[in-house]
């Protein structure tokens, strides 16, 4: 889970649901895509509603303001971006764009749009629509969305985001013409600086293309303010396979209707077979379980602590296979998500007034290294996730561009840990008779945090070296405030990626210059100039091989500094009725809020047997 906002917002759900957030980061495509691909045009329309029991709230479903967990499940079926991920590999492919071309200085990308695509409201998709959509996201600048990616790349957008966002500021931004209409089907985007991941940015839901006509008739654009009309109502303003038909605000239920004029995506032709899709909010796991078991829903997500009501526990834990034990229901997976959970060891603990505290337990690398050796990785994964998670080999998630499988993951070695701590004790002056007490933190309701701190503390304390860890918790609000101010000695949190590029993780973990909001390094007092310079290098490197190499170096460097213990990368899966076929895991866009299975299943080719 993400560091600040989302964790706090959602922690009640963790507390109630068993506290494990697992989702699918659709790393490419599941093999069923190939097997189950349906000839959508030949199938008659399936009139029975396809029911998805979503497990978190559906509020604010507007691409520029999609700050909640289930907005993407609606947006991914109803809107489309210029480029999206290929179903097999992690490469980007043209989607609403037919092709694109980067200028020689890599500062301008020119997109040629597919012709003949219409929005659900009947208007044409054209260059003006693309410009309006992207500019709208920049102008609204909803700080809760992922708009900062766009701000970081579009010319003038970052400057605008630090203004008071008056009409004059908006005009100043628009005068940059950073999204330029070349002709009806050609749009050029001007960047502020070279950005090798700019195209990845376009896949986040903030960059989905929206009918400008519809927006104009429904609230328009007010700089700096979310469009509450769009955010609170259904809108027929996308190009996707389904139309956002209605939204029952009282019941928090969305109804999607088949788009009979769908252009067919790069992989298929014709409209979808499902006539209606109903997405309803059901936060209670037991209710979702009863529903899927009794056939009242078609697709849902059941967290790992309840999943053994649907799959055989022994088969999974011993053989790693998901064997269904509930009739008519299958559990599919697993897929790595893009979230990396870590145990930060703060090298520069600050006091309330922002000054470094006199005792810095983790400043000595031997102590940090000892922590990494003392931690029981396998025990943690089993206790916390029932093995529905991987052990990361560094800060980059498996599935991201730049992931280097050859980097070894750390293993527990208590002898090494003890030696290192004894040695560190001599340096720092702690011993069994003169112990050093250190508090390790998690926020109230975080089961992962509780498990990780307890497991580490019990291992370290058993070494009897005088280095004593005490797990402790704080309410989420106070936790994030103290954490943001660098006051926690050590803590457990997660960091999700918005798209499949390592920049989502190397920056936060390695770049000390980032602020506390988007940076972990500053909060952990981790400042390695070498790592920072490598991060700058990869950010300007347009050659992907070279860039991957630099990223690998960054990961190794951070690992060698033992700044963090990397705990887990949750695995995703989803629960679906047996008679459903053609499902696939959708391209993992904007999974900050939606790294949950149901959020990213792609429904277009789905049909029933």
């Amino acid at each position, binding site marked *: 889970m*993400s560091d*600040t*906002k*989302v964790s*706090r*917002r*959602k922690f*009640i759900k963790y507390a109630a649901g068993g506290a494990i957030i697992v989702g699918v980061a659709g790393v490419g495509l599941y093999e069923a895509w190939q097997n189950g691909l349906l000839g959508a045009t030949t199938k008659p329309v399936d009139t029975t*509603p396809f*029911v998805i029991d979503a497990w978190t*709230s559906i*509020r*604010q479903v507007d691409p520029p303001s999609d*700050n*909640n967990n289930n907005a993407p499940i609606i947006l991914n079926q109803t809107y489309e971006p210029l480029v999206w991920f290929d179903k097999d590999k992690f490469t980007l492919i043209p989607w609403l764009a037919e092709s694109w071309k980067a200028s020689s200085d890599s500062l301008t990308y020119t997109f040629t749009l597919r012709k003949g695509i219409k929005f659900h409201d009947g208007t044409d998709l054209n260059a003006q629509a693309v410009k309006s959509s992207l500019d709208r996201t920049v102008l609204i600048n909803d*700080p*809760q969305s992922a*708009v*900062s990616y766009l701000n970081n790349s579009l010319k003038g957008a970052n400057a605008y*985001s*630090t203004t*008071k966002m008056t009409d004059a500021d908006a005009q100043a931004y628009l005068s940059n013409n950073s999204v330029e209409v070349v002709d009806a089907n050609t749009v050029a985007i001007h960047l502020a600086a070279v950005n090798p991941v700019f195209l990845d940015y376009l896949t986040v839901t903030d960059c989905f293309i929206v009918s400008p006509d519809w927006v104009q008739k429904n609230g328009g654009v007010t700089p*700096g303010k*979310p469009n*509450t009309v769009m955010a*609170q109502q259904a809108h027929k303003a996308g190009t996707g396979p389904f139309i956002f038909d*209605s939204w*029952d*605000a*009282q*019941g*928090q239920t969305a*109804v999607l209707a088949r788009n009979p004029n769908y252009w067919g995506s790069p992989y298929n032709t014709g409209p979808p077979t499902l006539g*209606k899709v109903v997405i*309803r*909010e*059901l*936060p*209670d796991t*037991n*209710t979702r379980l*009863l*529903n899927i*078991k*009794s056939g*009242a829903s078609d697709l849902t997500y059941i967290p790992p602590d309840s999943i053994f009501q649907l799959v055989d526990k022994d088969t999974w834990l011993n053989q790693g296979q998901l064997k269904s034990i509930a009739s008519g229901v299958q559990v599919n997976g697993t897929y790595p998500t893009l979230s990396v959970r870590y145990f930060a060891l703060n090298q520069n603990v600050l006091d309330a007034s922002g000054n470094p505290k006199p005792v810095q337990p983790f400043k000595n690398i031997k102590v940090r290294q000892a922590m990494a050796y003392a931690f029981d990785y396998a025990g943690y994964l089993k206790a916390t996730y029932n093995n529905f998670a991987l052990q990361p080999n560094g800060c980059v998630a498996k599935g991201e561009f730049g992931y280097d499988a050859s980097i070894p993951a750390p293993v527990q070695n208590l002898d090494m840990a003890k030696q290192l701590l004894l040695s560190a004790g001599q340096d720092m002056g702690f011993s069994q008779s003169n112990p050093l007490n250190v508090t390790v933190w998690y926020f109230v309701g975080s089961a992962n945090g509780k498990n990780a701190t307890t497991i580490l503390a019990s291992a370290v304390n058993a070494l009897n070296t005088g280095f004593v860890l005490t797990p402790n918790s704080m309410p*989420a*609000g*106070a936790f*994030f*405030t*103290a954490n*943001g101010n660098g006051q926690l000695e050590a803590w457990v949190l997660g*960091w999700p990626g*918005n798209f499949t590029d390592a920049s989502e993780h190397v920056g936060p973990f390695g770049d000390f210059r*980032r*602020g506390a*909001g*988007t*940076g972990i390094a500053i909060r952990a007092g981790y400042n390695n100039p070498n790592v920072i310079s490598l991060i700058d290098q990869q950010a300007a490197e347009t050659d992907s091989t070279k860039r991957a190499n630099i990223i690998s170096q960054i990961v190794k460097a951070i690992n060698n500094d033992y700044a963090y213990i990397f705990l887990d990368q949750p695995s995703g899966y989803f629960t679906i009725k047996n008679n459903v076929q053609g499902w696939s895991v959708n391209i993992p866009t904007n999974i900050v809020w939606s790294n949950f299975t149901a959020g990213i299943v792609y429904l277009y080719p789905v049909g029933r047997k």
Partner: protein
Amino acid sequence: MKLSSFILRRLILLVFVLFGVAVLVFLLTRAAPGIDPIFAYVTPNTPSSAYPVIREQHHLNDPLYVQIWYWFWDVLHGDLGYSPSAGMPVSMAAAIFFPATAELTIAATIISLSVAIPLGILSALKSNKWQDHATRLFVMTSSSMAVFWLGLMLQFVFFYLLRVNGLPSLPPAGRISPDVLVSQSITHYTGLNVLDSVLNGNLPYLVDSLSHLVLPATTLALVSMGLTARIMRSSMLEVLGQDYITMARGKGLPERVVIYKHAFKNAMLPTTTVVGLSFASLLSGAVLTEKIFAWNGMGSWAANAALANDTVGIIGFTLVTATIFVCVNLVVDIVYAILDPRISY
């Protein structure tokens, strides 16, 4: 005093109550140690460079009294401020969440009263007999049951077991079935699905809405009826010992008239207070019940706002709740005056 001027006076009082509550809650949320109010407005995606802008935008750098003033300005403009956790202005959030809670509360109260009052009377009439013990046991058990367990059991029996055995079952959660939602469309006038479907004259929608109400309302009712039944029992017992009951019997009135006319109306006086208070607290949302039955009401809004440090949302919720309490108390007072002629406004 006349009823209208009584109501008017209380409503004027309400304004002051609301103002006091708002200032208090604002100060409490801001005075909470170690919580930076900016966390209501940011996510990990928010770059640090935007923090000063956000602080400026939401006046977080200003002194508290200035911040209250800005909030008050929003109130005067009718939308009560923007609640980031709900993703909408407070007025809109209240308009969406309150009807849901109101519908559930009304249904639960109807169920609760129609069970608790007769049980309380029975318990009092058969005081210390087996009927009394059985009633008290039932009431104690149901009201001390954990909501999540009770809710789950009701879902399991009345939805799952019935459904897998091919019998007609009750919907486990939500406010409307997918197929009804897809096939029927109604205009929402009040946000109360039952009332709206009646106003629209849509029978399938009405039946479906009612069936969705059964389990959550029963859960809430079972948990909240204990107090009502016990108050009813004790006040009935007290009233039955009163001289005017002896008098009524002495007049040779049939026992049913003695109990359901003479004793009942008097015994309803204390019960009305309790029912009013529990009605008001139910109206401010039942977090657990709303979660289990996916009923998006005041409770889930409040929980989300609190978890997100959403000051504006918390104040908004508190104001709505305070208004509910004042209004319900007003209604209770009026009902009181109707029930008891000795009380004047």
